């Protein structure tokens, strides 16, 4: 890609009479006919130029709309040295390393230096005080800028940095010097610089970087190379180090881009929707004279190659021919970026922007990736027709990308809370904190949740805690793996108790929510399926609802209608929080750290209070035990409740929207509150809280042991911990305190009271949920089996008996009514003991 002679492109800095084939006069004539279409577009005399005047330099501002090249050509000050190529300082280290053209900066744009003092004829430099050398059209002084940046690299420390990229670095040492060392070790000559670091270090330098990236970044390159080869003169790099700034705070949202951002450094986030094929872009054309075989090189100037009309060697006209093989090309790729759905106002369609990636940034992203890009915003006029002078008065805009940062990259590997962190303004944070400080914040938030649904306070509280989630704990080192932090909730109850509505609400509230219906989803729809990409014909993995709602909530309606097959995939997801896939040659394990909010209807369409939860919804207990909270949503059928319900519903229909607003927190606040808590609050158990938890657990176990039952399992303890943590998060507290534990206990008890009460005895019996059968039921089952065994033994040595006969005998003998089911169960129990076998209608002893 790079011609071996690329070093020769480096010329010594200011040489007035350049040997460049583009001698000023010839360029001028060209400029005339090409300028209409391809020159960089002038920005409006933006207001920010005025604001920038408080700069370090006293040099006056040139209106940026005046095109540089026009002056290039006509001015005697044409030094012919683009700043991007000033890298060739006479040092051994740098000289040995080829400079690489920065296509992302539009390296061809000429930016000669102007000595402002010596040239007072320019009307805009007359106030120039002192020997200031600034890049034309900017207030950037290369020397000062370079020195400042070097100082920044040498001195900047970020002791509080939590960034992933700084892992393994000593945060108290200068950060970027360590990174330079890293470069020399790894050999990847790219230095990523966080713009916010520059901002904290030197606000003026930051402003220059944002406003004149095209001039400042090459200066940075120069600075960093000097520094690098000073420190490590023996390093061998593929090419000179390139500086890639990221996280410019100028813009975050694609919608906010406006004409004032043109030619500035911006950072926007979005989703890649399309990438083009690789486009080879000519950087330098190689011409050979057909007559005398004289070679010459011409650099691309604003997308055009100026073909030399005359051979400089033999003076033959039109004898130069382009030799493709020896021309230098760079890679280029067009990427379409679409606004992320979270950034969009309701009722509008997302915007898209064209982004160009150059050189090694090509093919770094795929469609579907969520990325943050930092780059220079460009606009160029469009022409209607190559042969017409008329121009469509519209500019084409694109972004030359300098830095990509995938926001969802790390989701595959681990936690990535800050990647998708929403940026809150200070006022917003203050507002949220103020809200959090209120003593009744928990109640407030829970009542703000789905206000159109009446009462069910505890259910709403449970869902609220689910939205916040517990704290993630990593025990991989001790072999236990990740501890689940997500809270799973199951709602069961009569049809028409607005379960679906609650689910819809939650789905609309959380950024990464998925909504499926048990009837309509298959196992693959939930997990992942492999399909052939229609374009590339490759097998690709398409993820289903559970994977998509990683870090979010998966709402599953009509949970009971799900096929067993489908439900079985939930076992892994709900405890291990992963999904293992082995199909079509693809074997992998995906993260699915999703909270499940499920709703189930009773099998008999109406809840039967005489039956246990398991019997009512007919779900396997293995699955049920994975839910932290199981709530019953029943129609209470009492008068006071009816009255309040009616009042609530009628109010729904006559209150105006303003009244509603006043009464409740609006959804946006709730959303922000949750997002903020999820990203910035990570509560830990306090000593006092752990004691309370232990006591609670012991108490729970005690209840059962009195009756010879197990009433709590470690899973319940884990649930309690999660709930307590979530409650602490609601308060924005970094410590879990005993009030959190109290609430967790209360909520857990409430849920148990509803779902795990044995209808026969009226006691709470956790084994209903953990084993699918209450202890009393199990006891009775054993009794029947024993009675049957006795009956058979009393019959003496008969090897075979009639089934019906035996059943009738047992019924006659027993005092309590024995159903056929019970009889069958007893037979099965005895068969398990290898005491008898049942074949058809006969029972044989073994």
């Amino acid at each position, binding site marked *: 890609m790079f011609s071996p002679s690329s070093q020769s492109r480096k010329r010594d800095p200011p040489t007035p009479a350049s040997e460049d084939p583009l001698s000023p006069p010839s360029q001028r004539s060209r400029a005339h006919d090409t*300028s209409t279409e391809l*020159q960089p*577009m*002038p920005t*409006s005399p933006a207001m920010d130029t005025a604001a920038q005047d408080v700069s370090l330099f006293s040099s006056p501002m040139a209106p940026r*709309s*005046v*095109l540089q090249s*026009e002056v290039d050509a006509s001015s005697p000050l044409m030094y012919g040295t683009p700043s991007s190529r000033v890298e060739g300082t006479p040092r051994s280290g740098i000289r040995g390393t080829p400079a690489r053209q920065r296509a992302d900066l539009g390296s061809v744009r000429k930016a000669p230096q102007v000595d402002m003092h010596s040239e007072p004829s320019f009307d805009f430099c007359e106030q120039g005080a002192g020997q200031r050398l600034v890049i034309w059209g900017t207030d950037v002084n290369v020397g000062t800028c370079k020195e400042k940046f070097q100082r920044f690299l040498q001195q900047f420390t970020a002791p509080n940095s939590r960034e992933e990229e700084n892992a393994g670095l000593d945060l108290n040492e200068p950060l970027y010097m360590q990174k330079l060392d890293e470069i020399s070790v790894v050999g990847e000559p790219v230095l990523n610089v966080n713009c916010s670091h520059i901002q904290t270090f030197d606000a003026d330098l930051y402003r220059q970087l944002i406003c004149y990236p095209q001039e400042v970044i090459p200066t940075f390159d120069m600075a960093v190379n000097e520094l690098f080869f000073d420190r490590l003169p023996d390093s061998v790099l593929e090419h000179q180090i390139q500086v890639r700034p990221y996280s410019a705070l100028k813009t975050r949202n694609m919608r906010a881009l406006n*004409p004032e951002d043109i030619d500035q450094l911006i950072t926007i986030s979005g*989703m890649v*929707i*399309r990438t083009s094929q690789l*486009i080879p872009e000519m950087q330098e054309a190689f011409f050979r004279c057909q007559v005398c075989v004289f070679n010459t090189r011409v650099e691309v100037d604003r*997308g055009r190659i100026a073909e030399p009309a005359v051979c400089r060697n033999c003076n033959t006209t039109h004898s130069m021919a382009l030799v493709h093989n020896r021309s230098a090309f760079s890679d280029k790729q*067009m990427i*379409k970026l679409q606004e992320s*759905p979270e950034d*969009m*106002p309701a*009722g*509008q*369609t*997302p*915007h898209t922007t*064209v982004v160009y990636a150059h050189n090694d940034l090509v093919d770094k992203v795929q*469609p*579907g990736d969520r990325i943050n890009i930092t780059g220079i915003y460009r*606009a160029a*006029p469009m022409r*209607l*027709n*190559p042969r017409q*002078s*008329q*121009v*469509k*008065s*519209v500019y*084409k*805009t694109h972004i030359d990308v300098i830095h990509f940062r995938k926001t969802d990259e790390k989701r595959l590997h681990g936690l990535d809370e800050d990647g998708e962190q929403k940026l809150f303004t200070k006022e917003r944070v203050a507002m949220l904190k103020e809200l959090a400080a209120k003593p009744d914040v928990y109640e407030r938030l829970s009542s703000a949740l789905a*206000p*159109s649904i009446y009462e069910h306070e505890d259910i709403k509280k449970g869902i609220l805690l689910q939205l916040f989630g517990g704290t993630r704990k990593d025990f991989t080192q001790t072999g236990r793996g990740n501890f689940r932090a997500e809270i799973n909730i199951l709602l069961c109850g009569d049809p*028409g*108790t607005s379960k679906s*509505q609650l689910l819809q*609400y939650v789905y*609309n509230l959380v950024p990464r929510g998925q909504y499926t219906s048990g009837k*309509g989803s298959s196992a693959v729809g939930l997990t992942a399926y492999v399909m052939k990409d229609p374009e590339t014909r490759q097998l690709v993995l398409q993820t289903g609802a559970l994977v998509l709602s990683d870090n979010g909530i998966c709402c599953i309606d009509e949970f009971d209608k799900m096929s067993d097959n489908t439900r079985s995939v939930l076992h892994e997801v709900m405890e291990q929080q992963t999904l293992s896939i082995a199909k079509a040659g693809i074997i992998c394990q995906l993260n699915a750290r999703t909270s499940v909010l499920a709703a189930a209807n009773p099998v008999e369409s109406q809840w039967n209070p005489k039956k246990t939860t398991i019997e009512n919804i007919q779900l396997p207990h293995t699955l049920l035990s994975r839910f932290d909270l199981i709530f019953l949503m029943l*129609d209470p059928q009492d*008068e006071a409740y009816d*009255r309040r*319900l*009616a*009042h609530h*519903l*009628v109010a*729904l229909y*006559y209150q105006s929207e303003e009244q*509603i607003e006043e009464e409740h927190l609006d959804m946006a606040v709730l959303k922000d509150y949750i997002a903020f808590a999820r990203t910035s609050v990570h509560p830990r158990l306090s000593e006092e809280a752990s004691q309370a938890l232990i006591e609670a657990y012991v108490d729970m176990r005690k209840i059962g042991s009195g009756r010879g039952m197990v009433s709590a399992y470690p899973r319940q303890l884990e649930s309690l911990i999660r709930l307590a943590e979530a409650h602490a998060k609601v308060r924005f507290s970094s410590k879990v305190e005993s009030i959190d534990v109290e609430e967790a206990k209360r909520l857990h008890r409430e849920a148990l009271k509803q779902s795990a009460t044995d209808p026969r005895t009226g006691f709470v019996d956790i084994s209903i949920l953990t084993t699918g059968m209450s202890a009393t039921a199990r006891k009775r089952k054993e009794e029947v089996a024993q009675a049957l065994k006795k009956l058979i033994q009393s019959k003496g040595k008969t090897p075979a008996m009639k089934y019906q006969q035996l059943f009738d005998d047992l019924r006659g003998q027993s005092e309590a009514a024995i159903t056929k089911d019970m009889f069958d169960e007893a037979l099965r129990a005895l068969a398990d003991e290898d005491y008898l076998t049942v074949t058809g209608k006969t029972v044989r002893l073994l």
Partner: protein
Amino acid sequence: MPTVHDWINNPLAVVDGLFAQSNSSPDWEKKVVEYFKEKLKLNDAHTWVPSLNDVPLYYLKPNSLVKFRCMVQDMFDPEFFMGVYETNDLTSNSKQVKCGKYKDITVGGQVDFNSRNTVTSERQTFYCVPIPGESQWAKESYAGTSQARVVPSTSYVPNRHKRSYEEDDEMDTQPQQLKDVSQGTQSSAESHGNTEPKRQETEAPSHDSSSAHCTSSLDLNFPLPGEKGPACLVKVYEDWDGFKLNDMLEVFGILSVDPALSVIADEREASSLLDPTEVTETVEEQRVHSPPPSLVPRLHMLYAQPLVHNNPLLPSSAPENNGDHLSSVLGELASVRAELHTYLTHVLMGDSLAAEYLILHLISNVYSRRDVLPLGKFTLNLSGCPHSSPYTEHLYKVIQQLVPSSYRLCMSLHNMNNQRMVPRKDYTANRLVSGTLQLANNTSLFLDETQLEQGQLDATGVRNITALGNLISWQKVDYDFNYHQMEFPCNINVLITSEGRSLLPSDSQVNLRPTLNPPNLEEYLSAVQVAQVPSQFNKYRIYLSGARALNYTISDEITKAVEEDFVEMRKDDPQSMSAEDLHRLLVVARLLSLSHGQNTLSRDGWMKAKQLEALRISRTQQQKSLSGNEP
């Protein structure tokens, strides 16, 4: 007769004039908008502006002021343009500062890109289509009120064009009368004096046929199949965030149809080889974003009026005025309602209960949302319609006559499996490909389930059914953006006709019980229709649109009574009255009150609503036991 005004024929002169006066102070932009707003406010001035909806494009003068009644179908990316630019005139060697706003192409001489006077501005492009499913009567009535005098570059007389419309249209049961009233004596004289050759002249380039021709090569992306009319790229200069997808607008703007705007595809490709910077757009994208202006004209918006409804018989302004308007007719409101009820009873073969519910359905409207719950929707399921009989088609025609926009969706297996209902983003062409469910607010969607036959729904079919279900239950459509879905709230009145109970959810199911059994259905129905005087139809239309827009409150006293009642009802039998039933009852009570022109719920209204519901439920239960007896 109004004289032709300069600001209609040459609005750009006004813009340039104001720009020249301004001395580059930025407030000239506001002045321009103000100027046109003022002009349009003058007595009926907006009726003088020719409308793209009823005047064929080739009769309109380029760069003149036109209006367009449309729905925002897609929003393109914002674009930067030269708000102010300077040109070099090569002949006189003079420089001129010009204004680029409201124009697509620079004029006069070489543009100096390096001028300091250049101002870059931003504008947004909307892709607008005529309101989907707009009824014929609404279109005609709008066209009838227009007093635009288009100065013809061809031998165009507006009246004659309208004649060709009449002849095109078989479904038009509207007699001549309406148009004659609005157009005055001159038009009737004209229409009589129509000679054969003249007629040919007007019909040959008839817009309908020409657009039908061209759509084969260029998809105009109308939400409903078989739609006609121009699509338009509307350039919006200010407050574009205020517009939403599927909004109905009346846009006043400057028409731009410069043929230079159309880019021929192969020329494009040739040039893209030359210049790699040009490949930002694919050919598909080019076609969509810069279609030939003869098919998709550009409209530079000066001013847009959001339309609350598209009923030409009501003033289009804010809803509070509507209330006044309706109360002026309120005197006869009771009689109009009674007549409409009788008419619908006849149409529904003598079933007066179903007619009552149909009225309630027709005036229903999502007036508010509480978090995810839409309030005020009233989806009606008319069960008991005969299978595969032309009856539903006739019923639809009746509804079409009453509402300003509607669409009948035959739920045949083929349709369900093949029709694109949910709009989908096409990333290659970078546009939102429309679907049947992309409809403007208050459109009546008529789902004909009697057309459903046995068979299997494929993946598309299942998705379509889910989308319809979501539309009915939550009044939202999830547009498919390939990588994610986006939810767009909507407000569509869904009426389902089915044989048994519909497979889709509905708020209320009424079992049709005909008391009449006419031997010839078609004759009977057409007789019923003919019996209605056309002016009667207009009354119905005003009534339906007006009642929908009324305000509604419930007093505290009634609230108490309703609560009591609910508690009482639950005491007797908790199963019979769930929260959901109360929801429905409240909606029925609301609609019933509104249909009688009452702004507030009265005790009487509540009782009536209860009776109505009781009647309906008993009928459904009877039907159940009846069908239960059948094998």
